[in-house]
């Protein structure tokens, strides 16, 4: 378990102090995929770097499996870091090392025998699906392939934890999806606890179990992803979850509802039923749902009819059908 205790980080500049993290308390449980989401500049990158002390907190502590990291000597810290893998937005592979030698690097550092390192590296290459590429150099790989190599490298020393700093932000949607699937597989099959830093709600939504929403250096909200997604309490969480398309920004005057899909049977045509049974059209302003193992997840924002009675009928239908929804500010 990773316990982050009253963590503060302040950067001193000539004329003023910049507070990057302000009293952060978090617990990350073993075996979960924990997301940390925030807008850029919120402090999430600093936070993840404080977990392995790449950035030294100004005060507070990080406790890893009961061990306080702040009290470790430099050498002890190096050993602890081998138990915390890390991947980055810009991949950060060694450009002058082949794919195989990138992956053997952490084992070389740990003093592992060359032959054993190579066996392990090939195992990992198979895991990330790049066995054919061991002699390639990073410059010869695509972004997605580079991130796969980075994942293999991060896992070489069999770490218990994996930190992902905007690991999919430089990738196209398709590749992002593949990398996220790979991370989920790694979490499930190897039991690696994963911490994901991102500014994209879809990344959280897709693979995280729990999420912390960070805003202006503080934690705004922590909880199960499904819970926060359905009932965001903080301003920032609403901002991150609700789409800000030009359409929804327009003031139309009538009421709008956000219908939340949280594991309903995906085969059921909810919206069609609503329209047919209520005998009234609704205007779909935004929709983002997906099917995971026959269950629907996501949200649809609909604009209710102007007529108050018709609108009430829709609300009534949603209530009687146990659909989760909430009114979205006009």
């Amino acid at each position, binding site marked *: 378990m990773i316990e982050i205790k009253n963590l503060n980080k302040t950067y001193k500049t000539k004329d003023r102090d910049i507070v990057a993290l302000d009293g952060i308390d978090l617990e990350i449980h073993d075996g979960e995929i924990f997301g940390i989401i925030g807008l850029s500049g919120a402090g999430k990158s600093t936070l993840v770097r404080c977990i392995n002390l790449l950035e030294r907190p100004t005060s507070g502590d990080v406790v890893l499996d009961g061990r306080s990291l702040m009290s470790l000597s430099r050498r002890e810290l*190096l050993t602890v870091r*081998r138990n915390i893998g*890390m991947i980055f937005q*810009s991949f*950060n592979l*060694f450009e002058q090392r082949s794919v195989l030698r990138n992956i053997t690097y952490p084992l070389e550092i740990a003093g592992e025998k060359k032959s054993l390192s190579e066996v392990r590296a090939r195992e990992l290459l198979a895991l990330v699906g790049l066995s054919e590429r061991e002699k390639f150099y990073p410059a010869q790989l695509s972004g997605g392939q580079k991130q796969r190599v980075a994942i293999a490298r991060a896992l070489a020393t069999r770490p218990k934890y994996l930190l992902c700093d905007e690991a999919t932000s430089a990738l196209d949607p398709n590749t992002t999806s593949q990398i996220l699937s790979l991370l989920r597989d790694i979490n499930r099959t190897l039991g690696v606890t994963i911490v994901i830093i991102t500014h994209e709600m879809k990344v959280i939504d897709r693979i995280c179990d729990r999420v912390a929403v960070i805003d202006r250096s503080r934690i705004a909200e922590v909880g199960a992803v499904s819970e926060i997604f359905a009932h965001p309490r903080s301003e920032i969480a609403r901002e991150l979850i609700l789409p800000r398309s030009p359409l929804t920004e327009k003031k139309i005057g009538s009421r709008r509802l956000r219908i939340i899909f949280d594991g309903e049977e995906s085969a059921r045509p909810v919206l069609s039923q609503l329209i047919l049974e209520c005998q009234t059209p609704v205007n779909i302003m935004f929709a983002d749902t997906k099917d995971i193992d026959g269950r629907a997840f996501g949200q649809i924002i609909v604009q209710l009819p102007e007529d108050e009675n018709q609108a009430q009928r829709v609300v009534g239908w949603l209530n009687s059908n146990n659909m989760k929804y909430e009114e979205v500010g006009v």
Partner: protein
Amino acid sequence: MLSEMLAKLWQNGILQLGIWETLYMTLLSTLFAYIIGLPLGLLLVVTDSEGIRPIKWLNRTVGIIVNAFRSIPFIILMVAMLPVAKFVVGSSLGNRAMIVTLVIAAAPYVARMVESSIKEVDAGVIEAAKAMGTPAFTIVWKVLIPEAKPSLIIGSVISMVTVLGYSAMAGTIGGGGLGQIAITYGYQKYNDDIVWICVALTIIIVQIIQELGTALAHRTDKRIRK
């Protein structure tokens, strides 16, 4: 067109000796300059405020010494360092003495070249190495130097060409090589053709060093898709 003097120089093997002296002074001086300058350059990067082990006072001290030597024009530094040369090799004349002064002049230059090459290594890559639990010295050895290798090679070519230029100046105070031939047999005896022959030979040597160095850097650089 060519003077008798030139033919004589060639027949007596003076010109060939000059080429050889220029080459070995350049190569040996560059080698020794790197033995001193490479660690200095690494020290400058590592102890920098943004470096992997910031040590402010050490960085400042080395920086000031390097700058001091770099700001003295070579022709003056050369004369000033003759006593040092005498102390090191027992004489203030000849090629061995010149190598000492060349190394003293080139080492700070090399330190700055090395520093700028190493600074090209992506900060993210260094961060990744740290995150994997790499000790500071191992980062230098296993990350900084290998990742900067192509740039270090290019830098060493530039340094070598600079040293070659310095070595010609050493010809004025008792060093050998093409510079000395150009001055003694060319400039002082009014044989322009000898000066020009020396110029041409120098250009050819520089070209060869440059081409070989660039090709080597290119070959070792894995960032280039082949």
